[in-house]
């Protein structure tokens, strides 16, 4: 396992990052001007990295498929960003954030990385406030916090239900400052189609201008992939429509190991699927579980009557409802982590207690919170002898102030008023913990190729806690990569510009144009979406919230067959040398059809349940995930060997020196 050197610094956990920063090589400011860096993806990780690296003096080129860096899907993150500020004085600390994250990830993440994440989390908030990010504040003028799942403190900073938007616009603004200075060249409506290696090092990319269809060569001394996760593998997910794995997958095929592909987060509170025409799913922020209570009817006949439209949820009394999370997990209640909440919803719906016409929905009910807030408001306003209707009105106003935009989104989609009747929710694919394997410096197994944010695997183990994705994206981009990449680039101060007329660039470009031609030559009748939907069904049914060996084997076979069919038959109108959205989609789905197979293989080889990976064969008598630390306390890092199914497994053993590995319990 020589190749999997995680390069964790020596010394005590709390000093590792500081020591490392003191020991790594730096590039002097004058030399930075002679070094080029390509950053693919302009979400929180890519945008913040681009701004910071440009500010340090490097020449940065950014690439995004959207028409502006501001539209990356980080923008859709709702609930918040964690930081161990302990402003609430409720006992939070760097260690506690570290501990919660490792435990939340079911002991499948790297200790040193997570500790560093917790350590720099506080800088993020300082940084963002200095940039003018308008976080929510209390009446005293100080920053407000709320709670998220899987923790017992209030450490989440937020901007209503638009935290991701505000943080991304902060990073975008920082980028704009560098674009104006000429230090960032921003390529929008561009997609990376291949990674170029020269002498074994990442030295550039082949990109397609999505407007003209032109194929372009771009060189650099290092390439950073900050291209997000691969949840669109499932077709239906809370990802944006364009989210894809192309950059990461191309790097994988060129030698970057892909880690823990089967670790996927299925978020418990999304708006349920309404029909076959559906193109995407919408998240209802986890922050709603601060105030919403999740339930299904206690009696099967009530659930059935609700499904048939004969009974309304508001007609059921308290004693007729099963608040199953509060029942099963009294310590954390509705704020158990996402994987636990999702499985519990599936369990109830599979048992026949689902509450919409498809039987795949549970209630998220705000009536108790509305009345509680209303009573408090009446008291603080000095109102006496107030009737229930007035209390309800007062309470609705408070809930609106907290979650107004989410309630509006829900009402527009479902056509029901969630202030009056409980929301219906069901789990949906939301995030991928797996991704490119990286060392402590965020470098992949290809020298000079780095991965940041959701695109790497590093910090969340087998399950990510709420409000930690924003934290990780910004930590990687603002505070980690700018230090660690210098260590590598210090060897490149005399290299000079990388030419793009080398045989390596020729070969990579030819590879790309051949592939586009091949995609365009399909002779069948079905569109790209037809194949994508089929793949999504296989993934959801056989590699979704619960998995077993038999179905995973079937999935591997079915995906391989579907891939063959796709390459022979997919029908793409138009031409490759002009704007062509179907061709864009086809390239992305082609990669998913390979990754899907590796995903299933990874899930099959991991004979344990941990975090979001639930194997039916490995569970406790109460139906909780049964981990196998003796045999599976490692990161699975896959090396590409030709076909996805031939991938070779490398293991990074996980060592816990500062945390006691125990059974994860939220009871």
């Amino acid at each position, binding site marked *: 396992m020589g190749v999997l050197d995680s390069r964790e610094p020596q010394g005590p956990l709390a000093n590792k990052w500081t020591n490392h920063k003191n020991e790594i090589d730096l590039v002097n400011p004058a030399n930075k001007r002679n070094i080029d860096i390509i950053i693919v993806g302009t979400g929180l990780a890519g945008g913040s990295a681009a701004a910071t690296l440009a500010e340090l003096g490097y020449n940065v080129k950014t690439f995004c498929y959207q*028409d502006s860096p501001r539209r990356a*899907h980080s*923008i859709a993150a709702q609930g918040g960003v964690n930081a161990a500020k302990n*402003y609430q004085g409720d006992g939070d600390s760097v260690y506690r954030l570290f501990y919660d994250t490792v435990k939340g990830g079911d002991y499948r993440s790297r200790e040193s990385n997570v500790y560093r994440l917790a350590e720099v989390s506080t800088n993020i908030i300082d940084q963002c406030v*200095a940039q003018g990010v308008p976080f929510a504040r209390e009446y005293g003028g100080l920053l407000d916090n709320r709670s998220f799942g899987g923790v017992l403190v209030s450490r989440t900073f937020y901007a209503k239900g638009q935290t991701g938007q505000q943080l991304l616009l902060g990073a975008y603004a920082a980028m*704009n400052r560098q674009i104006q200075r000429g230090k960032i060249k921003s390529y929008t409506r561009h997609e990376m189609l291949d990674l170029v290696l020269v002498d074994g090092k990442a030295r550039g990319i082949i990109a397609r201008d999505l407007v003209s269809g032109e194929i372009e060569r771009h060189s650099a001394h290092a390439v950073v992939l900050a291209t997000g996760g691969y949840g669109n593998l499932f077709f239906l997910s809370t990802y*944006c429509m364009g989210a894809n794995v192309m950059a990461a997958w191309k790097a994988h095929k060129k030698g970057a190991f892909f880690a823990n592909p089967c670790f996927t987060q299925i978020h418990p509170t999304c708006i349920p699927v309404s029909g076959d025409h559906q193109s995407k799913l919408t998240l209802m922020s986890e922050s709603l579980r601060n105030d919403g209570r999740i339930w299904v009817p206690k009696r099967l006949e009530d659930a059935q009557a609700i499904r048939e439209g004969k009974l309304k949820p508001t007609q059921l009394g308290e004693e007729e409802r099963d608040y199953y999370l509060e029942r099963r997990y009294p310590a954390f209640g509705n704020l158990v982590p996402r994987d636990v909440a999702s499985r519990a919803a599936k369990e109830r719906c599979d048992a026949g207690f689902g509450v919409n016409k498809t039987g795949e929905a549970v209630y998220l009910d705000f009536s108790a919170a509305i009345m509680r807030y209303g009573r408090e408001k009446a008291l603080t306003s000095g109102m006496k002898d107030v009737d229930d209707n007035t209390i309800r009105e007062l309470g609705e106003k408070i809930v609106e102030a907290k979650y107004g935009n989410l309630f509006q989104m829900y009402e*527009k989609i479902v056509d029901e008023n969630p202030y009056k009747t409980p929301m219906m929710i069901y789990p949906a694919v939301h995030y991928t913990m797996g991704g490119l394997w990286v060392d402590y410096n965020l470098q992949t197994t290809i020298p000079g190729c780095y991965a940041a944010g959701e695109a790497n695997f590093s910090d969340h183990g087998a399950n990510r806690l709420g409000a930690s994705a924003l934290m990780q994206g910004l930590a990687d981009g603002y505070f980690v990569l700018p230090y660690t990449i210098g260590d590598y680039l210090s060897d490149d101060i005399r290299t000079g510009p990388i030419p793009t007329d080398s045989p390596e660039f020729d070969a990579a470009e030819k590879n790309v144009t051949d592939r586009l031609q091949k995609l365009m030559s399909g002779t069948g009748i079905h569109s790209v979406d037809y194949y994508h939907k089929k793949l999504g069904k296989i993934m959801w049914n056989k590699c979704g919230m619960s998995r077993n060996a038999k179905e995973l084997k079937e999935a591997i076979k079915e995906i391989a067959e579907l891939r063959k069919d796709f390459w022979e038959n997919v029908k793409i109108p138009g031409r490759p040398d002009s704007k062509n*959205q179907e061709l864009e989609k086809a390239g992305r789905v082609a990669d998913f059809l390979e990754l899907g197979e590796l995903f299933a293989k990874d899930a099959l080889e991991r004979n344990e349940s941990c975090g979001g990976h639930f194997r039916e064969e490995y569970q406790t008598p109460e139906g909780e995930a049964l981990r196998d630390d003796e045999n599976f306390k490692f990161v699975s890092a896959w090396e590409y060997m030709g076909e996805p199914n031939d991938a070779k497994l490398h293991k990074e053993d996980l060592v816990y020196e500062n945390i006691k590995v125990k059974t994860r319990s939220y009871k």
Partner: protein
Amino acid sequence: MKLYLKIWRQKNASTKGQMVDYTLNGVESDMSFLEMLDILNEELISKGEEPVEFDHDCREGICGTCSLMINGRPHGPDSMITVCQLHMRSFNDGDEIVIEPWRAKAFPVIKDLIVDRTAFDRIQQAGGYISVNTSGRPVDANAIPIEKDMADKSFNAATCIGCGACVAACKNASAMLFTSAKVSQFALLPQGQVEAAERVENMVRQMDLEGFGNCTNTGACEIECPKGISLENIARMNREYLFASVKG
């Protein structure tokens, strides 16, 4: 339901476009507007025709990518939403629906319903930021208390998604609402004061350079804004601009 669609088709920026008629069957009321277009495109592809290209990404009303003029209104007939949040229950069986791209000199058509909005990026690049170093060590976040009311107002201005509906709605294709939202976000915060004068001057200059029209206070932008960005922001920007000019 059955719909009669009239859709703007244009091959690329350098060719002329035209309205094309399509009849679409089997539309359900709980589909989103974009899912309706997905179905149309599937039909077109199966017939060997090129699908209608339109911009879209998050499909949950926050990225600001989708940008359709529907029956003459940006983002369609409903208020406070983007096209991707518009559902077919807002239409009736037999309706004729006219779908066009944003129309503005500063937003040239790229293809079909897709326009080029990079002018918005350039306005932001001209000054839509606070010049602090990202890798620096700023003061503790709670060292500057900010009145909740001001923070909330700043946040409201900051929720602009940059979709361009304000420009599309305006008879002068003015970008005042968009530009003023960013100017206001920072003008309302103590962190934004240092560069306030320079910011507003640079952003307004760029806005004019891009070819956006003047504001004549009709208020159409505020009505069509999917995020409810208030006209107050334009008034605030005008004040900021005046102060900046006086300050010289």
